Structure formats: C-alpha cells, structure tokens
C-alpha cells in the first residue's frame, strides 16, 4: 500500500520532471529555426498596432488567433476577408460601427494609428497557426 512519503515523492518528483520538460520545450519553441511568426517582420508600425490593440482592449470583444471575447468577429485573417480599406473605415468611423446590429466602440483613429493597426493585423494574418489560419481564412471556403 502506498505510504505518505511515497505519495510525497510522487508529487515532488512528477512536478520537477514535468516542469523541466516544460521549460525545455519552451526554449525549443522560441529557437529562431522554429519561428512560425516572421518575427523579423515586426517593425515599429506592427508594434504600435499591438500597443493600440492592447490600449483599447480589442480582445475584450474580438478574438485574435482564437483568443478573446467571442462577441465580435475573429481578426486573424480580417485583412484577407475584408480588405485594408474596410478595416480602416471601421477604425476611423465617427459613429459607433454597428452595421450588423452589434455596436463597436467609436475610435475615430487618425491615419497613422489606423495604418499601424492594419500593419499589425497584416502581420497576424501571415502567421503559421498550424492549420487554424485555414479554418478562419476565406481560402478555406474553397
């Protein structure tokens, strides 16, 4: 029958081993040869776009890479689906965007910020998401 000290060893040993494997896999995932994100294409505009995305908590309604609020459309392939002009129109709208019945916060972005958001969403759209990009891409309709 299992003793208390054996149970403790199972807990401590199992935790240590799996944690070390987890760290090793994390290091492996972020080696440049395993990059699936075109990390070298992240420029000042993309970073500015990410800052705007976070400052306005866009993820609180939308999803991006499948993560977010499930209240507004997935943004992973939004440039492919809607095009740059449509995305900029929404971001620069002087009234809350709500053409399909669900209102968005009015952002009235200037050109610089709207361009940064487009750059950020374009970068997101080019990620290799292990197949999920095809599920949310217009190409997957074919």
């Amino acid at each position, binding site marked *: 029958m*299992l*003793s*208390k000290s054996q*149970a*403790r060893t*199972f*807990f401590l040993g*199992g*935790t240590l081993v*799996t*944690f070390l*494997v*987890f760290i090793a*896999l*994390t290091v*492996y*995932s*972020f080696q440049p040869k*395993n990059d*699936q*994100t075109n*990390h070298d294409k*992240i420029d000042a505009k993309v970073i500015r776009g990410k800052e705007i*995305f*976070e*400052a*306005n*908590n*866009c*993820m*609180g*309604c939308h*999803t*991006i*890479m*499948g*993560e*977010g*609020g*499930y*209240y*507004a*459309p*997935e943004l992973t392939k939004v440039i492919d689906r809607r095009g740059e002009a449509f995305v900029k129109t929404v971001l620069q709208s002087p009234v*809350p965007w709500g053409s*399909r*019945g*669900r*209102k968005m*916060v009015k952002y009235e972005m200037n050109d610089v910020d709207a361009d940064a958001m487009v750059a*950020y969403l374009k970068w997101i759209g080019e*990620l*290799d*998401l*292990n*197949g*999920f990009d095809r*599920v949310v891409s217009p190409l*997957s*309709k074919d």
Partner: protein
Amino acid sequence: MKYKSQKVAYWFFALCMLLFTLQIVYGFIMGFARIGMDGLHDFIPFNTARAVHTNLLVVWLLTGFMGAAYYIIPEEAQTELVSVKWAYVQLVSLAVVGVVAIVGYHFNYWEGRKFLEIPRELDYLVVVNVLLFLGLILATLYKGKRRTTTALVLTMGLVFAALLYLPGMIWFDSQVTDSFFRWWVVHLWVEGVWELIMGGILAYLLIKLTGVDREVIEKWLYVIVGLTFLSGILGTGHHYYYIGVNKIWLVVGGIFSALEPLAFLAMALFAMYMYRKGEKSHPNKIALFWTIGASIVSFIGAGLLGFAHTLPQTNIYTHGTLVTAMHGHYAFWGAYAMIVLAIISYALPNMTGRKRYNFDAGHYAFWLANIGMLGMTVAFGVAGVAQVYLERIMKLDFMDVQNEISIHFIVLLLSATMFATGIVLYIIEFAKHGQPTDEALNMVEE
C-alpha cells in the same frame, strides 16, 4: 474557532460576497448585450463589462483563498496569526487596488490582455499586496507548533500563484510570445497551482467534516496534487496549438491535457470516499453539500467539459468559440467558486457563534445556484456547438451566426436569473450570521 485572529477571515469573505455580486451584475450586462439590449453601450461597452466580469471573478476567488488561508493556517499551525493589524492593511489595500482597477476599466485604463487587464502600475501594487499576505502566512507557519501537509499544500499553492503572476508582467513585441507567456499565468494558475489551493481547502474541510484520519486524507492529497502537476504543467500545451508556435505542442498538449481530468476525477472519488468512510456526522450539512459538490462539479466542468474540446482535432474548430465559455463557466464554478463558498459555509458559524446549519434558505441557495449554473453551461454549450457548425464548417458570416444563436442567450439569461437568486439567498444567509465575535472562541464544534 480556536484562535482570535481567525476572525480576520470574515472580512475577506464579506469582500468576496460584494465582489461576487458585482461580477454577476456585469455578467447580466453582457448577456443582455448578446440579445441586442445594449443600452449601456456608451458607458459600459462589452469589452469593459467582460474585463470587469472576469477580473472580479479572479479577485473574489483570490480574496476567498486568502480568507481561507487566514482561517485555516492558525488552526493548522496551532498559533495566532503573526499580525492581525497587517492582515487588515492587506485586505484594505487589496480592496483599493481592485476598486481602482475596476473603475479604471470604464475609462480605458487597462492592458487589454485577456484575464490580465490590470494596468502595469497596479500590477506592482498587487505584487506588494501578495508579498505582504505571503509574509503573514509564512511567518505564522514558521512560528507555529506544527506543520501539516494540508497547510503546506495550501501555502505552496499560494506561493506558486504569486510567482506565476510575474511572467504576465513582461512586455513582448510579438502577440504570439505575449500570448504564450500569458498562459503561463492563466493556465498554470487555474489548471495548476489553484488546484493545490483547492486541494488544501478540500482536505481541511474533509478532515473537519468527516473525521477521517488526517494521515489518510493528506496521503491522498499528495497523490491528487501530484496528478494535477503531472498533467497540468505540460497540459498548458493545449493553449499553444493554434497561436503560432511549434507543432510539438499539438502532441504534448494533446496527450497531457487529455490526462488532466484524472486529477479532478481523483479529487471527486477522494471526497466521496472520505465522506462514506467518515464516522463523524458533522451537523453543518450545508458546508458538506458545497464541499462534496465542489469535488463533483469540478470534475464535470473542468475535467469532462475540458476534455470535450481539448484534443487538437476538435480544438481546431472549437478554438475561439462559445464552447470555451461553456467549459470556463462550469469549471470555475465547480473548482473554485464552490470551494470558496464551502469554506465560508463551514467557517461562518464557527466565527460568529450562530449555528445556522440547516436553514432552508441555505439549501435553496445551493440548489438554485447549481441548477442555474448548469442551465447556463448548457446554453453556452448549445450556442457554441451551433456556432462551430455554422461558422467553422458551413462558413457562414460571424454576425449571421450570432443572430441565429441569440435565442440560446435568452435561455442563458433565464438560467442566470435562477443562479443569481441562489447567490442572493447565500448572501442573505451570510448577513444573517452577523459579525464574528470572541464569544465564539472555543465554542464546542460538533
């Protein structure tokens, strides 16, 4: 209640009740917005309501865990808390940081990172607050007469929870890296160290309520938390399937997250077996209901419903849909909300001296809240499966699908009303117990 300083837990529990109430109010705002009733949009848009709803959940659960620790640790260590005054300072500062954060969300003062919306400046205050809390708990354990496994597991969970908050404070230029390390906080909290806290509280309650030998309960506690980490740490990989990192996570995450229900199954079997084995018939049946209920509902919510969409082949379609909301609601309710309500139900009569053990309102609260939450889970589930089929398979437009499934949110709101009624009854019972008193010290506990 054996130690005067345990009374401080009452005020943490009272803050829990307040924050929980607010969380439900914001949940209703979101539910009504989903059926087109968004009259508050100009003041409380959906992203604000969501940030408030989820952050209040995290804060009230953490407040409950802290209250539980202040109640359990003195009794387990057989000594008074090292400083009651500093515990109150910690409580007030926690409440102030929470209120500033929640108010700030209404004015775009946030980080916009799911579950970790608290702005960076307030993050530092959270760190100071948690360090103060841990200092008080660890110092109490250090000067205590005994160090039990229950107290150590509970404390280990709290220390790891504090450490794991730190990766969430690092800024990354890449959304992918940002998400990767955000899950170090969120996943390793809820499917890792919070389970240690839950296990610690559960073990304490089972020792008290069933009278089963401490050595037996604590041995199995080690096995359960061992299973939790064995599956949960590498199970983090199920969040990495489709966020732009290596395919190795499809294999690792798939295998280990499929094992995650084992820890919850073990917890449910453990609780039921100890209940049957126990020779003690504690009169506080309400606390027993919440305790055993937590172990069973957490297995269904976190274990089974998590397993339902954790394999990569399924998750590629369910990722980013309401299926996640289904699992999230029942998992948080069963694993964490119910265990906090269990320890409150157990501790309250002991702190106030009012043994309102078996009042009807307490039973109604339990059943209404549980049936209501089950209804909400089913509504989210049906809406989520329909969304997956229509949007991901049939390729209909997002808003067309949302309009199709909006009927399920009426069911959700009706169920939420039942749930809220249960919680209101629970809070009324809480209030009827009155405040803690020294007269309850060493009162005979059946």
